[in-house]
């Protein structure tokens, strides 16, 4: 039985998807925990919308470069082998299919691969930033989310009701209970979380999942 908390289960499973040299963009929130789970020997290059590949750890206090922040507004550093560039190339990389993965949080996600993660109807209006570009352009779109909302309803829905970030764009949904792949046939339960049965996942999900005969647990 794993000792990992829900967010670490989610982000460790996602970190294990990457192969050496992959280029990855991480959204705010849970996806920010992914880097600490990348296995030794695998180098993942982080991409930031404002024009960085290879953004490194936060700058030490007093050493902040006033001309250098990451996409979360943190004064960051650059790793050896990294580089910077303008917004058009940054989004060329995103939209041109050069990102191996984008990992994003969700307000809602559904079994058709629709994602809503930028706006709650009637709520504040922050703007979509680069999220619509990321879900449209990246080779693989991975949603990192707890399985249920605070009210107990499942985050994986039959159909999103909030304004969408992208239509039929999601490839994988990873929660602490399940790794679900969105396929043309439907949402397939590929793995369950540590100590969780397929039946349990199905019971805690408000949308039909395709359950293969054998569903392994995540190998974390």
């Amino acid at each position, binding site marked *: 039985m794993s000792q990992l908390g829900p967010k670490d289960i989610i982000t460790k499973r996602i970190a294990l998807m990457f192969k050496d040299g992959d280029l990855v963009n991480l959204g705010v929130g849970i996806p920010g925990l992914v880097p600490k789970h990348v296995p030794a020997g695998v180098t993942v290059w982080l991409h930031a919308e*404002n024009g960085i590949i290879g953004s490194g750890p936060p700058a030490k206090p007093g050493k902040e470069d006033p001309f*250098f*922040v990451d996409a979360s507004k943190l004064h960051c550093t650059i790793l050896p082998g990294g580089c*910077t560039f303008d917004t*058009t190339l940054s989004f060329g990389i995103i939209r041109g299919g050069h990102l191996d993965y984008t990992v994003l949080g969700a307000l809602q996600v559904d079994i058709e691969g629709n994602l809503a993660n930028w706006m709650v109807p009637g709520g504040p209006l*922050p*703007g*979509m930033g680069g999220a619509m570009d990321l879900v*449209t*352009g990246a080779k693989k779109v991975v949603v990192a989310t707890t399985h249920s909302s605070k009210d107990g309803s499942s985050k994986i829905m039959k159909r999103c009701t909030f304004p969408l970030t992208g239509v039929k764009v999601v490839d994988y949904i990873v929660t602490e209970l399940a790794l679900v792949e969105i396929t043309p046939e439907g949402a397939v339960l590929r793995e369950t979380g540590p100590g969780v049965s397929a039946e349990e996942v199905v019971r805690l999900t408000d949308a039909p999942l395709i359950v293969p005969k054998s569903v392994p647990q995540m190998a974390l």
Partner: protein
Amino acid sequence: MSKIKPLEEAIGHVKSGMTLHIGGFYGVGTPDEFIGEIIRHGIKDLTVVTNDSGTPEEGVGRLLYAGCIGKLILSWCGLTPIVPELVQKGKLELELTPQGTLAERIRAAGYGLGGVLTRTGLGTIVEEKGLGTRITVNGTECLYHPPLKADVTLTEAYMADKNGNLIFRRTQNNFNEVMCTAADMVIASVYKPIVEMGELHPDAVNVPGPLVDILVQQKGALS
């Protein structure tokens, strides 16, 4: 004729009612002195195209709180709660645009292209609100967005020479480079002391000098 001008003379070219491209991402690469000067002059009813609205104290947010902006075209305004207030009161027109589409719309204006064809935003509010128009090209559905030009671009650079060649540092570039191609007048706020022609590496220049009309030396740069 020197391109280097005092701050007040440079910003004298910005008039109420104009459309401005303003560079910057979370305030990095935003020409702060220009923002202050616009507020000081009480310029109103600006259409501002920018990545984000910064905060009430930083970047384009200062223009918002000072009441200088009539229309805002950007990708993110999450830290300036005055935006939904002004929109609700009918005092601000807001056009939320995906960040990549915004950059390409500016580039299309600067590069003389007829517009942008992108899959970003298909089936979302971007299409529902008519910001992008669905068309089918080459067997693929896309949204068409028109070019987005400004009267004046306000940009910040790390280094410049007297011909107006600009070099940015780290993430200071963001929208600045492309915005310098897409306005009738480009005004740059330069961080480091402006150097003689020939002192910048010609292959390292981000914005060719002839695209830049006016250079303003930032205060403190010569210290």
